[in-house]
């Protein structure tokens, strides 16, 4: 959409330096990577590799200290807090390890939260549609304490989907779930990917990474490896390739 190389996310020489007391921590030391629409990416790496930092920057929760981050061709690395909040609300959907649902608030109201901040119309309808996509429309009136772990995470995914974001950013989405429920959640991600959704999952589980089409491994703030294992291109990717070829 208006960008030159078609990348949804374009990181060029991205750096992030923290100061912890007197010590300077270089969490990212120049990460260059592009992620296109409808990609299904796993970001892996040992703790301290910088994967959380990378995720925070891609999620517009934080800004880099060096390099450039283009989101849909627009440089977002120097935006104000309020602009970043707007991007988070409209273009990015977060899924967290511990769900982060508001207690004492129904599933529907939880899903509506991003819509509330974005002040869009038809909030209820959109939220119900999002719950429908994770097959939880029958639980709309339930509160988090009336839901199982898997259901909670599905509500969280619905919340991430509510605004039809460009990217779903999932941070260890199965970390708090048993393997069976984890599988259930991954199936949802698979189907979202099949529908054309761009998904980035931060994980340390190889079994999760194995389901993704691309695995980026970080070590000491640098990309160690970046492998694509797409046995088959999803439909959206094919159509985009076709349209590119046609132009």
């Amino acid at each position, binding site marked *: 959409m208006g960008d030159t190389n078609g990348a949804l996310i374009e990181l060029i020489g991205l750096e992030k330096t923290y100061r912890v007391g007197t010590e300077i921590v270089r969490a990212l030391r120049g990460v260059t990577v592009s992620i296109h629409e409808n990609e299904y990416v796993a970001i892996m790496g040992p703790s301290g590799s910088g994967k959380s930092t990378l995720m925070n920057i891609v999620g517009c*929760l934080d800004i880099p200290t060096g390099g450039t981050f283009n989101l849909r061709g627009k440089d977002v690395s120097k935006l104000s*807090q309020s602009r970043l*909040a707007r991007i988070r*609300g409209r273009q990015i959907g*977060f899924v*967290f390890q511990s769900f982060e649902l508001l207690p*004492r608030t129904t599933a529907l109201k939880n899903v509506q*939260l991003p819509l509330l901040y974005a002040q869009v119309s038809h909030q209820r309808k959109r939220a119900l549609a999002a719950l429908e996509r994770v097959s939880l429309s029958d639980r709309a009136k339930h509160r988090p304490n009336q839901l199982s772990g898997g259901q909670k995470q599905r509500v969280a995914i619905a919340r991430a989907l509510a*605004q039809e974001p460009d990217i779903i950013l999932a941070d260890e989405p199965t970390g708090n779930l048993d393997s069976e429920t984890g599988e259930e959640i991954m199936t949802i991600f698979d189907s979202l990917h099949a529908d054309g959704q761009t998904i980035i999952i931060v994980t340390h589980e190889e079994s999760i990474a194995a389901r993704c089409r691309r695995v980026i491994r970080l070590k000491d703030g640098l990309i160690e490896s970046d492998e694509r294992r797409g046995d088959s291109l999803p439909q959206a990717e094919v159509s985009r390739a076709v349209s590119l070829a046609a132009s």
Partner: protein
Amino acid sequence: MMLRPIRWLLRLFPWMISVILRNGQNVITAFVQIWANKGRSILTTLGIIIAVTSIIAVVSFVQGFGNFITDMVRGYGTQFMVVRPYTPPERYRAGLGRVTLDLSDIEAVRVECDALSRLTPFVYTGEAEVVYGSEKAEGVPMRGVTEDYQTIRNFYVDAGRFFGPVDVETAAHVVVLGRTLLKSLQCDESIIGEYVYIGGARFRVIGLLQRKGSFGPEDQDETIMVPYTTAIKLYPDLRKSIPFLVEADGEGNIDKAYGQITRVLRRRHSLQAGQPDDFRIDRQDQMVRQFERVKTVASSILAGIVSISLVVGGVGIMNIMLVSVTERTREIGLRKSVGGRRRDILLQFLTEAVVLCTIGGLIGVGFGFAISYLASLHPNMVELDTPWWSVALALAFSAGAGVIFGIIPAFKAAVIHPIDAMRHE
């Protein structure tokens, strides 16, 4: 230049409306939060509740007592005025103390002022001595008046009779006694027709005044009344300056009567234009008005003093809101990560503080009314009056306390960085 702040406010207005409209969700969230921590919320708002309760109660009491007194003052009639000698301080210093009001002044007023319906000289001494048989009452207030006094002051006899014009003209030795005197002299109504000695002179008791009760520290029933002519004979010193009471001929003639009396007395006292009056006219209607003003000022001041306790309540709110912000750091992080801006978070927590304080205020208003009601059950209690403005003021103040004391916790919440917040355990 003057218009600039106004225009600025006008531009702010639609923004405020939209904030309030969008704030509905925050109000709901606030209620959910408050309900989730019921016990804590009640303890937190206790300060506000007590503050508002006392504001309402204090104002109700002051207003109630004020009404009681104004009603009583009004009960004497608003058409009467008291004219008394008055020496302006500068004349007093010059040693010009002279006769300021005498019987000829009073007679001139009676003859020349047609806006008056009644008039009575008021020869007063607080030091009369009344002897009846072996009983003696000392320091009794004695009023030397005419028969008009009863009508002007609404003070009638309910046994025997009052003295009439003939008694006044002949300076008859007749006396009307107040009810307290009966007790002092150890007698009952049979004293009518008997003789008492006042200042050594023999008086016939012709009537007993109705019971009137106390006005402040003054027992209105401890009094004796004699014809003013008799009083002057008995206490010749009093003739030098005699106050007098007049009654205007109808409410509409109060101002006219005032003007007439002033003109007559100034002429008789040969006062030049620019010279101050050497007498004073106290108007009952103005006294009532003045008293109303005093009542409002007094209750506002008291309410203001009690409002200080709102500050204590507000600090309690601030404290618990700070705790709440820390506890809900993860929620704040989540809200920020789904698009909540700083101002959204600020508004949310500010709303919560205001809602908490307003609930406290409403409960306080309820308690205030309850206390006023309970107090009014006491038989000797005056009727309490809770003006609407005190309720509005109390609610506005408690909501204001919410804004003032909620702003720091709300600001603290707003500036939390989302990453730190999500990492918070």
